[in-house]
């Protein structure tokens, strides 16, 4: 798993690549919490190159959402691969998150 961040307008865009599983979800969590800890309140997670996620990774998405809701921030997801979207649908996560087709639409 790798996270590449950039600043675009009011948002910090974090592009995730690789796998988020039980062996590395805490790394993902630490990096996301670091971004929030620096005061970034509006985050886009670009999932274009995220090709696997298990429940431990989904948990980090939920924790991030709860945290940003608490600070009136925004968490937008985009470019999700169909297989990952399916897991979000099954988990009921698709209705919890704002999911956009592309990064441009997510930057609002």
């Amino acid at each position, binding site marked *: 798993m790798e996270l590449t961040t950039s600043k675009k307008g009011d948002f910090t865009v974090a592009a995730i690549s690789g*796998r988020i*599983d*039980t*062996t590395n979800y805490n790394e993902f969590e630490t990096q996301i919490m670091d971004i929030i800890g620096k005061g970034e309140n509006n985050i886009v997670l670009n999932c274009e190159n995220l*090709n*696997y996620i*298990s*429940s*431990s990774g*989904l*948990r980090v998405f*939920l*924790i991030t*959402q*709860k945290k940003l*809701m608490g600070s009136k921030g925004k968490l937008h997801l985009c470019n999700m691969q*169909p*297989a990952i979207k*399916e*897991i979000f649908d*099954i*988990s*009921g996560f698709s*209705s*919890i*998150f704002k999911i956009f087709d592309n990064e441009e639409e997510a930057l609002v």
Partner: protein
Amino acid sequence: MQKHFNIKNNIQQLPLLAEELEKMGEEWELDMPLVTNLNLVLEEAISNIVFYAYDDEREHEINIAAEKNDNKVVITITDDGKPFDPTKKETPDVSLSAEDRQIGGLGIFLIGKIMDTVQYKRENEKNILTLIKLL
């Protein structure tokens, strides 16, 4: 077609499992999304075993057997941990909003959603979990 692999009760072995499944997927000509889903299901089941099945500090072996025929893939996971029936676990309410959603409880739920049949039995002091996916 049959395949067997063993992994230790160490979470760092999960990448090995992913490799084995990828090889199996190629040999058995399974779709990539199916291989990914089987990987997910196995990760959820095995991480539960690794985290909760053992109270001792000893090394244990978890046995995975996979079988494919014309219309299904059957995966059997056997461990010698304490009795645990995942089919009896309470399912999370996936219709709740983010505020009300509990962190956790998703792993076993995903197994049940992805697979067509999930069966559990306790035999000879072992947990045997059988997971079936129709093709």
